[in-house]
């Protein structure tokens, strides 16, 4: 089986994978990093979004061998080194951006990519950007509020 090397959240790792192993499986099963969730496994739900060489991608729809040599960022690398939440994570907590929490890793990684390219998105831009991320609790308003707050803007609707 091929051995791949990646830099995941700043740490060099390697894993022995089959060619057919998708990146989400390599992260979860080979590397034990289960923060990246797999919801649909069909590229619809976005729970598995990670960053590969700085770009948000669906890790269930990319082979691990394609990520050989890449820099990968996952939810596990988002908190500060002292364990405290980063601004986006904290905003999700403060603004009820999660209910069951299953979609949250993908939501956070997608929001992180959005705010890097567009630091002050409008509510419409946020909703457009979340097109490929599904929250099956349907808690979108809290997610949008959290991303507004994380970008230093007033949430569209105040949290209860």
């Amino acid at each position, binding site marked *: 089986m*091929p051995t791949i090397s990646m830099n995941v959240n700043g740490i060099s790792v390697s894993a022995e994978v*089959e*060619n*057919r192993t*998708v990146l989400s499986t390599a992260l979860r099963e080979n590397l034990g990093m289960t923060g990246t969730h797999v919801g649909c*496994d*069909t*590229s*619809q739900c*976005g729970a598995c*979004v990670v960053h590969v060489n700085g*770009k*948000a*991608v*669906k890790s269930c*729809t*990319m*082979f691990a*061998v*394609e990520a050989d040599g890449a820099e990968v960022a996952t939810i596990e690398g988002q908190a500060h080194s002292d364990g405290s939440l980063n601004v986006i994570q904290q905003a999700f907590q403060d603004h009820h951006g999660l209910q069951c929490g299953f979609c949250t890793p993908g939501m956070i990684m*997608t929001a992180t*990519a*959005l705010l890097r390219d567009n630091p002050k998105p409008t509510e419409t831009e946020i909703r457009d*950007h979340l*097109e*490929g*991320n599904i929250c099956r609790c349907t808690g979108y308003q809290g997610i949008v509020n959290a991303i507004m707050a994380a970008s230093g803007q007033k949430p569209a609707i105040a949290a209860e």
Partner: protein
Amino acid sequence: MYNFEFTKPKTIKDAAKALAADGAQALGGGQTLLPTMKQRLAMPETLVSLTEVDGMVGVDSRGTGLTIGGATTHAQVASDAADVYPALAGLAAGIGDPAVRNRGTIGGSLANNDPAACYPAAALASGATITTNKRDIHAVDYFQGMFETALAEDEIITAVQFPIPQAGNYQKFVQPASRFALVGVFVAKTADGVRVAVTGASGSGVYRWTAAETALNSDFSAKAIEGLSDDPSEMITDLHGTAAYRAHLVGVLTRRAVTASR
């Protein structure tokens, strides 16, 4: 999914050689191929990744038109073509979702020729030339029906050249689950006349709506095609919409595209 051999060639020549083998399949961004393989609808023996082949990524507007490398992602086209060909950039910005656009490529989309994909409409309406490792193929000759193209087994789309129309626009009615076009219409007003290319509607893939083109050639306005509707007899009926519904959408979206053309 079934397992396979994997190769990541660095040159076009090596990629073509690998693709000539029995059971070999090109892998672009994989946004269609991976889901297809998971369903075991495709079971290639070897995947030949094209993402690291030299010289296949980029948007070049130095010539008279726009040349886009075959392995260029939708996201890059959406950003890099925005100033030169906004209708094309807008189309690219509406494919799938942001994460899909970061992986999916123009070459992959055109090689697959899904009957509901967006890029075939842009290529046909713009009068694009599909450049492969062997030859140049005009869009008119390239699309040959649902999932069928003029490409040979070991032929790779290295670039796509788009002449830039005087005005153009793409309108799509999104099928909300897949985000493919239920119907999409690309209108391009060129020095040679107006071209209207329709995707998503026909069982034979992308086609030109010539009746609308004739009307628009004498008067490029939505009014010129008011009441005009395309023949539904060859159109797709599925759980998302009937042929008659798609035919209606073709008219509506063409009028919207003409109005929005710039």
